């Protein structure tokens, strides 16, 4: 399997009409509409290697879905380039369609009035999947997602969890090397979520599929993704591992230790500060951008001191992401401001250069 995603300087701008308030405003908008440009995605670049699961994160309206739509070929970028398994998706949509599977949150691609298995059969024909391959893939998906307990039920009668599981199977029936999942587990209960996570993990680790996942569920990110791309206000603000994100935005861990010698001297070391001491009870915390991860700090404490008990309080990823979204929003705004400043600075030069 050779799935990979390459994104270079991808941008997308939408032009919308501003509706002015009030009756007169509405008339003015009709006669003299005011068009404004909304930059949904600006100059995003990243790569996803074959067999990698990348979480594309960001608050609502950050540009995640727009990015996925460009990568699936249903939206053309204003600038930049994207390749999915070597194909430019918005130029060769049908070829790209054979290489990708997609699930868009609560939008189902199954036929509402038909039993799930009939939908699968129609997709088998549309994607031209040989019958024996189709049957063996269905068996595999059934083992992982327990589809056979409801696949003779019409889609309109499925629960949300059953429907999303069916949609996941539908997206993978033609064995695509790349899968796009836009908030696939939204609204599902924890049991089904875990089943879906197991399924995705299997598809990545055992089947080598490349998965691009957007989600607001941080447990999902924690359990599935090693690498995340964080975007906000349409700009990429971080591309790295979860540890890097924690280090950058989530410096709220604490290591609580009970020293064997209650009078032993305790000194902070680079990246770690002594938060408080009460006899043998000591609490360490992170200090500055060079702070180690909580697990590194735990190891360092054990190496430096003889301890009889040790515990850690780690910031939940959700807290980290909350901090990340806020700070990333400021960063994205700064980046946009810098670009605007550059453009403003260049404008007179261009005029002069004329």
């Amino acid at each position: 399997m050779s799935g990979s995603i390459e994104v270079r300087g991808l941008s997308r701008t939408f032009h919308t009409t501003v509706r002015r308030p009030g009756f007169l405003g509405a008339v003015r908008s009709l006669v003299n509409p005011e068009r404004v440009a909304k930059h949904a995605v600006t100059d995003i670049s990243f790569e996803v290697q074959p067999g990698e699961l990348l979480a594309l994160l960001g608050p609502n309206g950050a540009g995640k879905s727009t990015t996925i739509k460009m990568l699936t070929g249903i939206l053309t970028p204003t600038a930049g380039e994207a390749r999915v398994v070597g194909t430019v998706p918005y130029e060769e949509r049908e070829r790209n369609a054979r290489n990708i599977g997609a699930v868009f949150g609560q939008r189902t691609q199954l036929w509402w009035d038909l039993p799930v298995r009939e939908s699968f059969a129609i997709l088998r024909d549309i994607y031209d999947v040989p019958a024996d391959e189709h049957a063996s893939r269905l068996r595999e998906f059934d083992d992982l997602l327990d589809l056979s307990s409801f696949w003779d039920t019409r889609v309109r009668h499925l629960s949300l969890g059953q429907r999303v599981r069916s949609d996941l199977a539908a997206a993978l029936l033609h064995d695509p090397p790349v899968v796009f999942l836009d908030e696939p587990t939204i609204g599902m209960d924890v049991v089904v979520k875990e089943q879906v996570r197991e399924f995705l993990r299997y598809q990545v680790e055992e089947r080598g599929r490349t998965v691009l996942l957007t989600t607001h569920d941080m447990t999902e990110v924690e359990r599935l993704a090693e690498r995340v791309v964080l975007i906000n206000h349409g700009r990429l603000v971080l591309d790295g591992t979860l540890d890097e994100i924690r280090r950058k935005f989530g410096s709220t861990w604490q290591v609580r230790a009970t020293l064997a010698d209650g009078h032993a001297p305790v000194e902070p070391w680079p990246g770690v500060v002594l938060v408080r001491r009460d006899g043998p009870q000591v609490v360490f915390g992170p200090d500055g951008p060079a702070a180690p991860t909580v697990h590194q700090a735990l190891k360092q404490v054990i190496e430096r001191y003889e301890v009889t008990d040790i515990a850690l309080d780690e910031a939940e990823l959700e807290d980290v992401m909350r901090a990340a979204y806020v700070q990333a929003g400021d960063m994205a705004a700064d980046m946009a401001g810098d670009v605007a400043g550059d453009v403003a600075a260049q404008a007179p030069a261009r005029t002069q250069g004329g």
Partner: protein
Amino acid sequence: MAMPSALRAWRAARVTPLGELHTPPRMTAALLRLTVQVVLVASLWRGLYAATGTTAGLDREQAVTYAVLAVLATRVRELDQYSGRDTVLQHMHFGTIVYWYLRPLPPQRYYALRALGEQIYGFAWAIVGYAVCVAAGVVQPPKSAAVAGVFMVSLLLGQWVLYYIMLAIDQLCFFTLRNGAAMLILIFAQNLLSGVYAPLWFFPDWFITLSSFLPFQATLSVPLSLHVGRIQLSDAGTQLAIQAAWVVVLALLTRLVWRRAALRVISQGG
């Protein structure tokens, strides 16, 4: 060996008929409605002709045959896509139209295959209804094999024209996100101008002239008039040519709109 994709994809035509077959109450309702409509329409036209011989060039048997065939013909394209959440309007509303553009089967081909399946399935209903009505003496069969043949060709062309008219209305959704009003106007115009409510021969001359410039009468009025003998075989060639011309004009128009619709989807992202 795998079947060629073009051959396999035709099975997308199963979508709407399968939905109906999986919903027996919907089929029962359709059967009941069709039966009641046929009985009422036949009674109405028989009543209207109680005190007259020939009106608007149609005698009683011709008028009843025309009216009942019009009811049966509506079944050909009147499957319930709405309940199956499978109208273009619903796909635009729910955002599921993106999946039409995420498959290796072009949306226009999928739409055409689905419509073909609906028409074949609807035609099976109509043919059974026709056989029952002929056996019951409600409908008179064509006067000759030649008339029957011309009628079949004309009916086929008429359904083709109707397909393009329905497609054009659905395509409106890509630009307006709403086609309810257009659909209501279409249904009324289609029923009135194609002769479902009453044969066009009963309308004033100016109305018949006006409707001759529109595609609607090519859908139903022409084939049914050929069937009952109101249009003679000698005029059939011209009528078939007009129907074929409408097929070509509407095919070109809707092809153009499909391209614009695709641009619309890929500029807005579905």
